[in-house]
């Protein structure tokens, strides 16, 4: 393992301290490992997200005007605890209530749901939850807990953040967040694995000529191990899969996120965006806005994902709203 590190035990804490030092409008509460706005606006719906660390800039990098109010930071790839989330809810309570944006994983769901129950019962705080499940690599069936949440979550933060900033009620903010969730899909691939600091070795082995298709954001296996494909081939395959799942048709408007997993240089992400945009243009799907960069990473994994958000007038209005956070400014 070769990392800029002091010791694995304090990795997440030192990273959050560094983030807060770079962005003085944010504060890091070490006891509960939460990054929050210094000033909480009590007259708007509070938005809280979080999850395991290792996805930087998600989620702490999205705390700021027009997105989140608090990010709860778990250990690397492990959900924060119920008590951490409960403290985040209590320390950011507003008159309009709190919306938790949860990526759909067992641990996150149980901890955020448990915390919401505690805050509702013990502190009379109005809390609602939404669950992001945009990864089409995962089979959705009655027998599983459903699809996992990946990079599409960034769009949900953006949309819900704008709704809250515009003064919407908790119910309205939840509705528009759920609309974004219903209209966003993602699919990704990895060229290398990633190394969790506490473990010190890559999570999986992969050959020089191989890729993991349909990979998640924790270095966990995807749909299949395959020979690596060209950018154009990957773009065609991924865009077609998303178009089918999202039932996109000619003339639809979308927002596009080309998300790097942490170790892929921007030159490759822009090249891949060229391939993806070309396929979308051929299909006559209109790209309203494009984001290219590392938004939802898997530590130092090489690879990328494509997220597509199908837009309507309301989602476009929310997408266009001002946002000013460490990792996203529009």
């Amino acid at each position, binding site marked *: 393992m070769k990392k800029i590190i002091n010791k694995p035990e304090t990795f997440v804490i030192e990273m959050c301290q560094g983030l807060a030092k770079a962005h003085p409008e944010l504060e890091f509460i070490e006891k509960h490992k939460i990054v929050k706005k210094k000033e909480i606006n009590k007259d708007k719906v509070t938005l809280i997200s979080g999850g395991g660390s290792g996805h930087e800039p998600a989620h702490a990098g999205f705390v700021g005007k027009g997105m989140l109010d608090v990010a709860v930071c778990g250990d690397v790839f492990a959900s924060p605890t119920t008590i951490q989330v409960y403290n985040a809810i209590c320390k950011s309570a507003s008159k309009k209530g709190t919306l938790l944006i949860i990526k759909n994983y067992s641990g996150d769901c149980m*901890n955020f749901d448990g915390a919401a129950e505690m805050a509702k019962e013990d502190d009379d705080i109005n809390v609602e939850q939404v669950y992001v499940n945009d990864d089409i690599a995962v089979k959705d069936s009655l027998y599983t807990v459903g699809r996992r949440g990946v990079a599409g979550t960034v769009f949900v933060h953006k949309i819900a953040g704008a709704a809250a900033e515009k003064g919407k009620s908790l119910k309205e903010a939840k509705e528009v967040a759920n609309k974004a969730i219903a209209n966003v899909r993602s699919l990704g691939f990895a060229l290398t694995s990633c190394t969790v600091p506490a473990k010190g070795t890559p999570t999986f082995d992969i050959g020089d000529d191989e890729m993991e298709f349909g990979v998640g954001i924790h270095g966990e296996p995807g749909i299949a191990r395959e020979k690596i494909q060209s950018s154009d081939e990957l773009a065609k395959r991924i865009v077609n899969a998303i178009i089918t799942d999202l039932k996109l048709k000619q003339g639809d408007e979308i927002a596009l996120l080309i998300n790097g997993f942490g170790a892929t240089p921007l030159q490759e992400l822009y090249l891949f965006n060229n391939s993806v945009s070309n396929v979308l243009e051929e299909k006559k799907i209109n790209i309203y806005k494009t984001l290219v960069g590392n938004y939802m990473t898997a530590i130092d994994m090489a690879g990328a994902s494509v997220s597509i958000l199908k837009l309507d007038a309301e989602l476009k209005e929310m997408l266009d709203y001002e946002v000013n956070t460490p990792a996203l400014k529009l």
Partner: protein
Amino acid sequence: MNKLTTQDFIFMVDTMANIIIENEVPFCELDSAAGDGDFGMSVAKGFKQLKKDWNDVDKDDIGSFLKGCGMIILEYCGGASGPIWGSAFRGAAKCIGDAKETNLQGLADIMQAAAEAVYKTGEKSFGKGAVVGDKTLIDALVPCADSLTASAKAGEELIPAMKKAAQAAVDGAEKTKYISAKMGRAANVGDRSINYPDAGAYALGVIFTGISDAMSKK
């Protein structure tokens, strides 16, 4: 020996914590095969904290002790392990109440209550909890509890019954190798989880075996 006192429960949880801390890396590696590799670390974190706060945990009776452990586990175990293992301890605590002594039947009831509490935690978030065959720690916990219940009914001795129950957990964990995960993180990879045991079920097999060995040497 057919009675279990508060001291015995303190000894068993202490043994459990030591096993979990010793196996942190192997448990993580098991979870890497089909999950996200955090299991060993997440569970060990809570039990390391438990050892750290050991002197402050209420040890007046079995229920208070188990509840105290459960709260620390809920607060400090990362990932899904906090709610799952925390609820198991708190469910067990509620079942035994302020008793300072119990027997094989009582132990069987405690383990059944722990399994029920884990089920309910899942049910709250997902509409249904895990059952045997979903490839979760339930695949080891339920056979273990059922074995204790059967042994109590048959009037067996405590220590042999505990050994039998530990073997039931190990066998249950072994069976998870041959099934595809329906709940938990490994469900994301479906059939690709086949050939790997569930990390939680496997860990319970190791833990219960260690506890029954330690108890038999007491």
